[in-house]
């Protein structure tokens, strides 16, 4: 489980970095699009890190 939490934590950090970088740059208008896409992606990252669910990740989606 610590690995799963670490993955989620790292994923959230990457997502935060992405949103911050977009917001500061000329492509700030992408933030709403990313805000829609990222939650689904984070679920994906989280599921991949859970050993029992990982083999069924394609079934989940």
């Amino acid at each position, binding site marked *: 489980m610590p*690995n799963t939490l*670490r*993955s989620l934590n*790292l*994923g959230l*950090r*990457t997502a935060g*970095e*992405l949103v911050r*970088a*977009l917001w500061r*740059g000329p*492509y700030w208008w*992408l933030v709403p*699009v*990313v805000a829609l*896409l*990222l939650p*689904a*992606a984070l679920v*994906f*990252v989280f599921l991949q*890190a859970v050993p029992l669910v990982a083999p069924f990740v394609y079934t989940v989606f």
Partner: protein
Amino acid sequence: MVVDGVAVAAMQEERYTRRPADSSFPKWSVRACLRAAGLRTADLDRVVFYEKPLRKFERCLATQLRFFPRSAGVFYKSMYLWLGDRLWMRNRIADELEIDPERIVFTEHHEAVAANAFFTSPFEEAAILVAGGVGEWASTSLVRGRGHEIEVLGEVRFPDSLGLLTSALTKFLGFEPGRDEELVLALADSGSERLAQSIAELVPATDDGSFRVDQRHFRFAFDSERLFASRLETLLGPAFPARGEGCEPPGPRAADVAAGLWKVLELRFSALLRELARRAPCTNLCLGGDLARLRRLNAAAYRAGPFQSLHVPSAPAEAGAALGAALLVSARLTGERPSRPESAALGEVALAAPDEPTRILSGPAEARSLLLTQLLRGRVVGWVRGRFELGRQSLGARVLLGDPFDAAACASLRQIRLAEPFAPLCLAVPEERADELFDIPPGAQSALRNAALTLRPREALRARLQAALGPASEAVACTVARARDPELHALLEAWGAARGMPVMVLESLEQRGLPMARTAGDALDLLQRSALELVVIDDRLYERAGVRPLATAVRHAPAPVPTDD
């Protein structure tokens, strides 16, 4: 792998997985690098990835939206790839290497490419042109290297990209993009300039030495499969079917398209070099990126340009960028310039195969004499020794050798490699005698050692070497310095004494569509699969008749996985 500012290992994953340009996580090459340095992942100060995934994602998303609705068909696929995998590179590296995420860093892609070009060069200061497909946003970067620093002075931004334009036209002609661009340029001399104006209008020049690419004719900005739009076919005629094995040589229309592309590339590349010289006044030039793999373009642009010396690394594009990223991070951490790698042979030695050799040779002298005897009989021989090199062109460690004066040997060598019959071959010559063979531009020694230029042999020799040359009567020139590779140098000298001129065909030991041989097993596979009759691997001679077919699983038993014990 860079240790104390010295590159100790660098290798491409494709050599391990045998999948060309393999983009999967490089776990085999990571292990091999750790093995070569005698380190564990816990010993690593930094792990660097050679591009910034977040900026690249920004570019992909913005481009997909900009080209909507044309991009609608590929949006889902692209986002699936990015959101499911590529965006989370820090997670991936941390998980695969079991390393603290704080030690993972990212460099700009073109900085990494430029660092590879500059830190492997002999120059203290240089102007660096990085021109390729695309990094994060930049498709072309004008860079200055000085001491341990790399400074980007200007860039051309995606989707205006000469590299992607070349790939799109390569695909249009039925060749494989990412692999056959050089073949397309080799064709150019047999074409007319009938289409040059139409192609030039697709890539208008701008006042600052830059250029634009008319995106209405292309799809490469958002679709990595179909690189050109149907509008291009309206302009240049129908696209050519994909070329397979045993295809007829391309006809005059294909040559005309190639000639038009060549003209545009030459003009725009030269303009970029002039602009680079203006922004970074310096006599030394380093080239990097996908376009630096086009050796004919390197030679033409350097000759026409304002620079007096040139360096092109052995792997100017993606594979070299990983090495460049590591060198750059080392330079930034220590504040010192990394040591220049002595050679490109940064891979592993050839692992022994389970096959019985036909004969064990007593040493390098016997190997040389055997190779010489076979070459004089007109045979093509394989030669495998030491660590394999980084880059697409082997410079002596995994090679096929042949007689360039013998048309049958040249044809046989091309057939073994499944190469197109018009592909120019690489000719190796001792460095001190290179001037006798080629008309060499001054200051290009460093690039020639990495076989980075295509040159025309001197008039007196051209007719005799015709079989080794491409349609433009040019060959790839590779000079061999005695101090860097005494064994190959001695072989060339002995060959020169026997044949009159110390020039020999030196091509990578590979077949088209497959990565270059890495292990003895790979070389023996080629021995069985092709018309190659013998291969010398270190001090062992293998003849085809004496090598039994072995199951792939037996010959290629995976390398042991290092443990932390």
